[in-house]
């Protein structure tokens, strides 16, 4: 709590007014294309705004993610992800709507960090909307009835409406989360639709890499090419490359004697 108070971006009214002036100026420099996508901005102004509000990222991480047991590397990554969120917030913030930037930025930073943590948790990459649904399910069920609810408790027999998401989305979430709870390589892979496929079948076989396959093909072709040569040519070729050091004695036909 002390850390949060220390990191809390306490700005004077003068600072806030300056920020708002900068945001208004930045908002005016934005150029959008026909689809409403931002194509051009004043990058110098954007960087200045990011530097002025960088403390918000630290504050958000300290407030929402400090209770998690994270390694130093993950924390550093989280800070970077938070900064990406901050840039998104700066780009999308509209000062004319009357909200404070800190309110808007906090959501973007939090979302960027949550997404990163969820992505770290699984081997399978899932779309952002599935991750959001995953958060939504956990949050709803923990808050209402089942405080000890985990994603593992997702039940096929229950209607998807129970969780407030579609059936397909539940399948996606289960597939993504399954990588966390693998007990055996012989467990069936992702869903029943894969038939008899086990997790072992999904692991790439390094022994059968593409390179090795090419070498095998080349060796087979070389064998055939070698066999097409006359014996004398073949022996000299092999001797020249030091593949063999001696040759068997030539068979002499009785008719030759």
């Amino acid at each position, binding site marked *: 709590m002390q850390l949060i108070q220390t990191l809390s971006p306490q700005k004077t009214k003068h600072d806030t007014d300056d920020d708002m002036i900068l945001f208004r100026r930045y908002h005016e420099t934005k150029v959008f294309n026909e689809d409403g996508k931002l194509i051009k901005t004043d990058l110098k102004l954007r960087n200045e705004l990011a530097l002025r509000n960088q403390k918000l990222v630290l504050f958000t991480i300290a407030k929402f993610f400090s209770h998690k047991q994270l390694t130093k590397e993950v924390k550093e990554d989280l800070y970077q992800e938070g900064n990406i969120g901050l840039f998104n917030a700066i780009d999308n913030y509209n000062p004319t709507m009357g909200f404070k930037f800190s309110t808007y930025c906090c959501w973007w930073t939090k979302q960027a960090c949550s997404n990163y943590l969820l992505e770290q948790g699984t081997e399978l990459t899932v779309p952002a909307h599935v991750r959001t649904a995953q958060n939504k399910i956990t949050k709803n069920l923990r808050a209402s009835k089942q405080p000890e609810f985990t994603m593992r408790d997702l039940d096929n027999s229950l209607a998807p409406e129970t969780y407030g998401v579609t059936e397909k989305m539940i399948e996606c979430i289960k597939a993504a989360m399954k990588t966390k709870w693998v007990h055996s390589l012989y467990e069936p892979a992702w869903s029943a639709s894969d038939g008899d496929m086990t997790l072992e079948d999904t692991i790439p076989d390094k022994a059968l890499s593409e390179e090795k396959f090419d*070498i095998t*093909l*080349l*060796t*087979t*072709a*070389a*064998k*055939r*090419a*070698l066999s*097409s*040569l006359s014996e*004398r*040519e*073949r*022996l*000299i*070729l*092999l*001797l*020249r*490359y*030091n*593949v*063999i*050091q*001696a*040759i*068997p*004695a*030539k068979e*002499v036909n009785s008719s030759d004697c």
Partner: protein
Amino acid sequence: MTANTPKTYVVLEDGIDFRTIAKVMTKGGYPMNHATARNVWIMAMRNFITELADEVGIDITEDTIDNMLLDQELHSSLGEVLVTANRGTEFSTQ
């Protein structure tokens, strides 16, 4: 071979020289001198490369084969391929 005649083959780092090859071949019942050994080797290389290109499905010209015969790197890798290809055959001494 005069000084102005372009070379048609390269000296191999780990290979056996043509005089030794000629001796081994003569001992094995194929009498020849070092020049014959060299000529047969060049012919064998030409045939081998042509056959290999056919197997792999590449069109190859005589000029390409000439260039290949002068490529030191190709000879080094070809040696490795031949070692692998010769494993388990009647001439294998490995």
